[in-house]
């Protein structure tokens, strides 16, 4: 049977550009711009945090002040004034946040409906539990009861700090140290909310977990933090989606995601990133400077990253795996699309520490318009990683004369029993392929769409079904008008 999703209706897609560019008019509790230790104390107090967390934040802030913004990425942007950003914005609501969906502001529910993420449990995404993060705070988490019955903890980060402080203290910053890099340090100092997941021993999470991030307020940054712990023998699939209103100024998004997989545990982490990319001339858009890293601490554990990056003015992001446990597995599947004036510098790091660890990297970059798209990856095999294996396939597609595609792989092997393979290609969309499809009666747009989707297929195959279709549609919208 024909299981391939049908091509998105292009006429419909062409008429819409950035679908998620609306602003929700809602009362917000927003801190004035600026960052110093008092701001951090204020954030921490407002969230009723324990002392250890405040100390941890302050330590991060002090580290941040000693760090410099990284300059090695193949991206260009005007200097960011970190004192002009507001570090906390929350929709005004009842004091302790909503206890149930009935208490959530209807305007927020409406916002998520418009984004296609209904928070009502009876609604369409019935198989997916959703945590919705609006600016700096989590506004709702669905299916809490059902997950609770399975022993799964899935809640806003702030709730986890209150309810499971020992887990937070044990794992927070244990994968991405506070001083890991400039943006991670900033996030550690000022992070506001995000999602926390804990899957107990031997539990296969009964449903997909999903966090939906939404930036709404102007002049704010979003600094969420996600921590996922998969205990021995457990399994979880987690998805995140991101959107923001269309605004003329750039907004900073500096998130940190930490994953920990213990013995025989599997974490599958999928992202469909569609932050506002700015307009055709490069005005506005999100700066997406994100640190994502997972540690396969246990034997035979597995962490798999899948990302479809179509949004953001600038993407700086390298979801990575540290493969410590013997026989552990790291995967990275990525589609990165850059059109108009977007700049993407994204890839992964696979650090092989343990014996017989293996990793797979499949990266598909598509550049159009005046965009710059870079793959940057590190495969490092330490002397201890006997029998390590890596396979990397990294392809770039060029659509138009003014875009750039770059590949910067670093391969460092210090164990002779390792096998590391890297392959990369860059080419424009194949004239022969295009002609073949036109000869079979397809329109130019359909033909291009078909080829691009084929090009990305090995990555889309890794996405959960609901997201795969969404990703295809996004791809078509992102590349709209890029081939004439």
């Amino acid at each position, binding site marked *: 049977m*024909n299981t391939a999703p049908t*091509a998105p209706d292009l006429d419909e897609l062409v008429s819409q550009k950035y679908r998620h560019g609306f602003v929700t008019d809602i009362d917000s509790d927003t801190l004035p711009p600026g960052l110093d230790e008092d701001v951090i104390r204020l954030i921490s107090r407002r969230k009723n945090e324990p002392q250890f967390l405040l100390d941890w934040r302050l330590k991060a802030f002090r580290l941040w002040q000693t760090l410099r913004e990284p300059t090695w990425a193949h991206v260009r942007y005007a200097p960011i004034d970190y004192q002009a950003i507001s570090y906390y914005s929350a929709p005004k609501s009842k004091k302790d946040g909503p206890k149930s969906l009935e208490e959530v502001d209807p305007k927020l529910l409406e916002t998520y409906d418009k984004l296609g993420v209904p928070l009502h449990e009876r609604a369409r995404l019935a198989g997916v539990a959703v945590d919705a993060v609006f600016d700096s705070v989590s506004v709702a988490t669905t299916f809490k009861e059902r997950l609770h019955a399975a022993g799964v903890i899935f809640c806003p980060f702030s709730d986890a700090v209150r309810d499971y402080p020992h887990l937070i203290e044990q794992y927070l910053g244990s994968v991405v140290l506070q001083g890991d890099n400039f943006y991670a340090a900033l996030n550690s100092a000022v992070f506001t909310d995000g999602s926390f997941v804990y899957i107990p021993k031997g539990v296969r999470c009964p449903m997909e977990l999903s966090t939906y991030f939404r930036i709404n307020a102007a002049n704010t940054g979003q600094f969420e933090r996600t921590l996922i712990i998969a205990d021995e023998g457990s399994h979880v699939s987690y998805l995140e989606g991101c959107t923001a209103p269309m605004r003329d100024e750039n907004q900073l998004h500096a998130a940190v995601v930490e994953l920990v997989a213990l013995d025989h545990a599997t974490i599958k982490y999928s992202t469909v990133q569609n932050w506002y990319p700015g307009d055709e001339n490069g005005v506005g858009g999100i700066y997406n400077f994100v640190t994502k890293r997972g540690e396969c601490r246990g034997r035979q554990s597995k962490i798999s990253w899948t990302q479809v990056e179509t949004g953001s003015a600038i993407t700086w992001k390298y979801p990575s795996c540290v493969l410590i446990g013997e026989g552990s597995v790291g995967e990275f599947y990525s589609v990165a699309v850059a059109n108009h004036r977007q700049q993407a510098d994204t890839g992964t790091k696979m650090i092989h520490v343990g014996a017989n660890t293996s990793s797979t990297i499949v990266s598909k970059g598509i550049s159009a318009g005046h965009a710059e798209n870079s793959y940057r990856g590190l495969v490092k095999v330490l002397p201890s990683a006997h029998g390590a294996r890596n396979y990397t396939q990294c392809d770039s597609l060029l659509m138009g004369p003014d875009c750039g595609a770059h590949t910067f792989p670093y391969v460092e092997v210090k164990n002779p029993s390792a096998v590391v393979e890297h392959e990369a290609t860059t080419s424009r969309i*194949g004239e022969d392929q295009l002609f073949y499809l036109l000869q079979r*009666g397809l329109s*130019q747009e*359909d033909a291009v769409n078909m080829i691009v989707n084929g*090009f990305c297929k090995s990555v889309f195959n890794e996405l959960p079904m609901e997201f795969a279709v969404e990703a295809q549609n996004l791809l078509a919208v992102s590349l709209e008008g890029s081939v004439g």
Partner: protein
Amino acid sequence: MNSIQRGDVILDIRDLKADVAGRNILKGLNLTVRAGEVHAIMGPNGAGKSTLSQILAGRADYDIKGGSATYLGEDLLALAPEERARRGVFLGFQYPVEIPGVNNVYLLKAALNARRRQQGLQELDAFEFMAIVREKMKLMKMDESFLKRGVNEGFSGGEKKRNEILQMTVLEPVLAVLDETDSGLDIDALKVVSTGVNSLRRDDRAVVLVTHYQRLLEHIVPDFVHVLAGGRIIRSGDRTLALELEKRGYDWLLEEPTAA
């Protein structure tokens, strides 16, 4: 659309001249193909056979320097490749292109529905479509696993050619131009391919076979045989001409000064 009668002119090429990369390949070619006919175009290597097929399908890297090609009364050369395809011109490629990651069956369905839209017909739903495809695959002795593979991806030479003919039988073109479809086929595959082509023969359609060898014509018996050499049709006849070519080669024709 469906009012083509046996004997109507489907393709009319007049004094066609074309360059490839600055080189003069077609030098005034004339050919008339009518409904119900099968034409074989033979000729030595480099005579311009593939150029002719590619031009009929609308490949962009050929410069038309003069003459005309009319398809069902329309200026064929003015149509975009996909418009030609939707109007029923099918090219069986000499070297079918591999398109990794693009599902074979997906392409087939998209192509068929594009053709049907042009004909003012309803698009087929998945069940109707699969029923047609299964029937044609049986005819082509193809395994269903073909459908799930990428377009021509990792296919052997014979599989690619079979896949071309499968597409043709599903799309049911008015004019099928088959470019060296027989090359690289063993005898069993040749029979299967011929069955596919013969199944398409009807009073309201025409087939142009571009081939180097006579052996295909034992299975698909042509009404006319043309010799293309030096960018022109230098001799036309019935299938006995093909047999003679097989015996005598092309040299005797090239030496004769009688080329018209």
